[in-house]
Each structure stands twice: as structure tokens, then as C-alpha cells.
């Protein structure tokens, strides 16, 4: 297929800045962002993709390997794949969306194969498409994004959105951190694909994921959903960054003295590990992996072995200390609320894809491994890119719009105190890392954390604008703080245990709470409840 490419136009700009005129601006260059850029460009849109780091290495996928929720289009197989997930996710998935995503993922995976992704062949010569090697996949996606005609801005974090007089989103601006200048892109639609928020916990590849897109979207009034499902923790060696929870399925977990931690398991027993870690160190040994499995692990995920090979540990024979690193909304299911099939948000001109968007529609309140996130990134990226391109086309020339910057925090001059990004980031981490606050939740502990987080927000709202060198860090820290507040307000609004959200004070699932929790707001954080589609239909039928 030859695609007529239309490129975003670089327009004249004051010294110290660059400006582009585009139809669609994509923020974030991971899987969702690149799929969005490719698809928007294929619809004839002029596309700019701005990544905080480098499109191709940025984000949770590039550094790791990921499963993909890829199921052959056999109705029985698809039915099983959907049914298997319902209990895990707390019955909050939406069947129609699950089916759409399975279709979308199948189609995009076929495109990857056409583009030359080296899918492995099994013993019978069949191409196996339910796993992707991150570096390989994202190197290919960068190439395809360029070939589609999109302009990529690397090391160009967005700092704030632009809006027109009617409040529709019309671009963004940020900094080019290696060129020490500013960028502005005027666009008719913006796709937020900046990933979730892992609070700088160093879970593999996640330190660019600080919720920046959430903050920008909240400043234009966007809504979030399922933010209470934001407390997955991944197992890694205590000293290292490589989180590959799948492989710990072959591990035995033990205390310092060598005795086995009861009920500890990677799947279905991670809370036992968290409880043991509250008491002292926990060790793992992958002693249940036989020679075949050991070999398959080595060839499938070489980076898993780097921390071991480089410290002389044999993970199959030696015990090594492990920890749980918070993955926040990267592996949680909360994010920007999606209002229609094109992945539009509640704000005109603003679309969301990948981990920046809620994954409640296919995962409910629990993701498990990364395979649903990967499937969602491909599918939602495609839809958001197409949706944004169509919206831009329908907007027409859109000349003469008066645009203004929507950024608030870290941009306001208040003389009272200086902005201290590092201290602010730590303040947020202190409330979301502890297993006793976030893994195991309870009303009074959540309220205590919220009181401290709200106080920190009021404090920083009165801080002076961040300096040029600090503004990115300041915005990241503010985004983390805001994310923590949406998480815990939503957690309080769900007095039950469902999906990954567990309340010590409400340990059971409550059938009457089969609904979604919506949240939003910055100075005042609010929550409300939306019915699940099935429940809404049932009530209508009564």
C-alpha cells in the first residue's frame, strides 16, 4: 500500500523555540503512541509525535519483553480467553470491548509480521505471535512511524496542552531537553499516549512514566476511571531493576533462615510476599524450573539474566533477595476515561491510548501479566490515531483559532516559596510505595495518606514557577502527587475488595459495587460512580 504522506509543517518561531503546524499531535512514543501516529498518518493526517525520551527505547515495553493477548479468530478460543479473565478482573470488563481488542490485536500483529517482525516458529512451523521482544518491537515501530510520514521529536517532553476559546484541545508545548529550547505544536487533535505512572520506582523501563499526560489532561478537565486499581507490585531482585513476574512462577520464596514463606507465589500469592517483606528480607530461588524451562527462559528473555550473570548468582540454584517494586497505573488498570469507540476522552480534541487510558474495558480491575496491556496499546493506539485524524479532518482548516496554554502547577509565579521537585516526588513516593498503605488498604490509613498528599498539593500550589532547568522535574513530581490523590480518593470510594484493589476493612467483593469509579480535579479531587454496562441494561429491562 502506498500512502500519500502529508508532513507536519515547521513554521517560523521566536528564537529559542521551534513550532510545528500539524493535524494530530501524539504525546508519547511507546507502542500506543507509535500505533496512533502510524494510523493517523495513514488517514492522511499531518502528524507530530513528541517523546519525553527516545521513541524506540522509551517506556515499559521497549526495555522488556511482553506477552500479547493474541488469540486466533476461533470463536471458541476467543470465548474462553474472555471468560477466563472475568473473575480476575472483578467482573468489570466489557465483552464488546474485549472482542474488539482481540480483533484489533490480531490485525495489528499480522501487520507486524508483514513489516518483518521476527516472530518465532514453533516445532510445527507455525508463527507464534503471543510474545514480543521489546527492543526489537519498538525499533521496528520507530521505523514505521517515520515511514508513515510522522515527524518525531525525541527528548521533547510535553509540559502543557494548548486549548482554543471553546476549551477544545489544540496542541501542546514543551522543552527539547537536549537542545535547551522550547517546542510548540499546534494541532487539531492530541493523543495522550504517555503511559501510566510508576512513581520512579525503577521497575524496568518505567522511569519516564510519571503520569505527565494525566496532569496535562486534568488541567483541561479530563476525567479518569478505575484509578483505585493502581497497586500492582512486581518482583525483582532486591538490588536490581528487572521485573519479570512470569519467571517467578517457578520460584520458591523463603525467609532469611531458609524456611519457606507460606502461600507465597508469583501468581495468586504475591500478597504473602508483601506481608513477609514487611517483617524482613525475602529470598527467591527458581528451583522449580527444569532444564528445558531454564533454556526457554534464557533465550526468551536475556535481560532477566543480566542481574544474575553480572553478580555471579545462579538463580536456579542460589537464593537471592527479592523485593516488590510498585508498578502503579503502568500495570494497574486506571487511566483517562474513554468515552467512545475512537478512544476519545471527555474533552473535545483529546484522545487517549495505551497505559495512559483506562484498561478497565478489557481488564476490569486486574491485568495480570503485560499481555493485555500490549494488546490494548496496539488496539487503542490504532483507534485513537484514526479517531484523532478523523476529528481533525472534520474540523477543516481551523485557522484563526486563538490558543492559550492550559498549564497551571509549576508555571504560576507565586513568590512565597521555591518549587522543590525532588522533595515533592519523595513526598508522593512515601505515600504510595509502602505495602501497608497501598497494597493493603484501609480507610483510616488511606485518609491519613490523603491528608498529607492534599497538604502537599496545597503547598506546591503556592510555590513559585519552576526554573528552566527544573520545570520538567517539577511537572513530573506534581503529576505523581496528583495521581496518588486520584488513586486514594478512588480507593476510598470503593469500600470492598475487587480486582487488585484490596481493603483490609472490606475484604470481600460486594455485588452492589459492580460499577466504575470516576475521578478528576486538581485542587479539589472528586469521585463519582458509573454503572457497568451489564448492570445498566439489566436495570433498564426491569
Amino acid at each position, binding site marked *: 500500500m502506498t500512502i500519500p504522506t502529508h508532513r507536519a509543517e515547521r513554521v517560523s518561531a521566536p528564537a529559542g523555540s521551534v513550532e510545528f503546524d500539524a493535524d494530530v499531535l501524539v504525546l508519547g512514543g511507546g507502542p500506543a503512541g507509535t500505533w496512533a501516529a502510524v494510523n493517523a498518518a495513514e488517514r492522511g493526517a499531518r502528524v507530530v509525535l513528541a517523546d519525553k525520551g527516545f521513541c524506540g527505547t522509551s517506556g515499559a515495553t521497549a526495555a522488556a519483553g511482553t506477552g500479547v493477548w493474541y488469540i486466533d479468530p476461533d470463536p471458541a478460543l476467543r470465548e474462553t480467553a474472555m471468560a477466563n479473565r472475568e473473575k480476575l478482573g472483578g467482573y468489570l470488563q466489557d465483552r464488546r470491548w474485549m472482542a474488539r481488542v482481540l480483533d484489533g490485536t490480531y490485525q495489528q500483529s499480522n501487520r507486524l509480521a508483514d513489516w518483518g517482525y521476527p516472530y518465532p516458529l514453533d516445532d510445527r512451523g507455525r508463527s507464534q505471535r503471543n510474545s514480543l521482544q521489546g*527492543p526489537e518491537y519498538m525499533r521496528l515501530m520507530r521505523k514505521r512511524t517515520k515511514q508513515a510520514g510522522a515527524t518525531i521529536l525525541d527528548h521533547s517532553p510535553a509540559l502543557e496542552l494548548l486549548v482554543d476559546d471553546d476549551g477544545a484541545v489544540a496542541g501542546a508545548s514543551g522543552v527539547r531537553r537536549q537542545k535547551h529550547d522550547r517546542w510548540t505544536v499546534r494541532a487539531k487533535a492530541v493523543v495522550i499516549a504517555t503511559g501510566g505512572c510508576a512513581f520512579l520506582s525503577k521497575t524496568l523501563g518505567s522511569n519516564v512514566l510519571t503520569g505527565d499526560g494525566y496532569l496535562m489532561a486534568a488541567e483541561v478537565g479530563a476525567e479518569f476511571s478505575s484509578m483505585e486499581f493502581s497497586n500492582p507490585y512486581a518482583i525483582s531482585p532486591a538490588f536490581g531493576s528487572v521485573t519479570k513476574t512470569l519467571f517467578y512462577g517457578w520460584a520458591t520464596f523463603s525467609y532469611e533462615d531458609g524456611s519457606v514463606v507460606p502461600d507465597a507465589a508469583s501468581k495468586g500469592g504475591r500478597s504473602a510476599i508483601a506481608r513477609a517483606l514487611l517483617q524482613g528480607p525475602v529470598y527467591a530461588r527458581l528451583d522449580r524450573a527444569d532444564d528445558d524451562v531454564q533454556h526457554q527462559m534464557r533465550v526468551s528473555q536475556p535481560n532477566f539474566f543480566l542481574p544474575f550473570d553480572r553478580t555471579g548468582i545462579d538463580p536456579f540454584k542460589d537464593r537471592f533477595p527479592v523485593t516488590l517494586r510498585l508498578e502503579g497505573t503502568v500495570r494497574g488498570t486506571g487511566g483517562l476515561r474513554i468515552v467512545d469507540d475512537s478512544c476519545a476522552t471527555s474533552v473535545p480534541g483529546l484522545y487517549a491510548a495505551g497505559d495512559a487510558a483506562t484498561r478497565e474495558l478489557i481488564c476490569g480491575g486486574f491485568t495480570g501479566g503485560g499481555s493485555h496491556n500490549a494488546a490494548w496499546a496496539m488496539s487503542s493506539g490504532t483507534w485513537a490515531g484514526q479517531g484523532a485524524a478523523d476529528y481533525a479532518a472534520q474540523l477543516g482548516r481551523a485557522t484563526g483559532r486563538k490558543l492559550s496554554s492550559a498549564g497551571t502547577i509549576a508555571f504560576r509565579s507565586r513568590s512565597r516559596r521555591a518549587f522543590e521537585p525532588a522533595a515533592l516526588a519523595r513526598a508522593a513516593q512515601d505515600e504510595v510505595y509502602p505495602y501497608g498503605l497501598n497494597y493493603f488498604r484501609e480507610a483510616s490509613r488511606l485518609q491519613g495518606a490523603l491528608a498529607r498528599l492534599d497538604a502537599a498539593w496545597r503547598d506546591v500550589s503556592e510555590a513559585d514557577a519552576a526554573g528552566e532547568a527544573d520545570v520538567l522535574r517539577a511537572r513530573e513530581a506534581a503529576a505523581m502527587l496528583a495521581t496518588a490523590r486520584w488513586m486514594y480518593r478512588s480507593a476510598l470510594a470503593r469500600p470492598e475488595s475487587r480486582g487488585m484493589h484490596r481493603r483490609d476493612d472490606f475484604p470481600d467483593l460486594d455485588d452492589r459495587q459492580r460499577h466504575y469509579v470516576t475521578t478528576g480535579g486538581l485542587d479539589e479531587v472528586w469521585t463519582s460512580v458509573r454503572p457497568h454496562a451489564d448492570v445498566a441494561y439489566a436495570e433498564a429491562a426491569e
Partner: protein
Amino acid sequence: MIEVIDAERCTSCDICVNVCPTNVFDKTDGIPVIARQGDCQTCFLCELYCPEDALYVSPFADETQPVDVVALKRTDTMGSYRRAVGWTDDTRDRRGVDRSYLLFGH
């Protein structure tokens, strides 16, 4: 964390400066410098992209470590990740050997 840019091997191509997602390196007139080691997220991606096997990322994510570059070179540790994933000419066949499909569902 990133610990080593080996001046002997580095050709100042600046690829690492471009590809590091957390912007740890700075360009110079000669070989790049590790300018913000504390921002390193220990993702090993710079090692994958360095064509000269001139970088070494220590697996310790939270603290710096003393490293013995001579020993790293002797044991072929530098470049080992690139070879393992098939990103060198003589290991290209490893790009298609993912066996994850045998491990899922455990």
C-alpha cells in the same frame, strides 16, 4: 546503573546520547560523558544500541558500584546483552528464538 563508557572502544558516535530514554549522557567534543548517573533506570538499552560494546551497565539499580573494566573486557561482559538478543552480525539468528509461548500459562 550505567558505570562505564570505555574510551578505548568508543568512537564518539553519540548513539547512546540519543537513545537513552532518561537522558543520562551529554555530548562533548570527544566521547560522551555520564552526566546524570542518578537518572539511570538500569534498562540496559544503551548497551544494546552501542555499536562498539563500549558501555557497561551495572545491574545495581539504586547504588553505584566499583567496576573493573579490564575484567569486564576479558570476560566479554561488555556487549554480552547485544549478542544475547541477536543484535550483532554473528548472532542474528537469535532474534527469532523467543520461546515465551512455551512458558505462558504456567
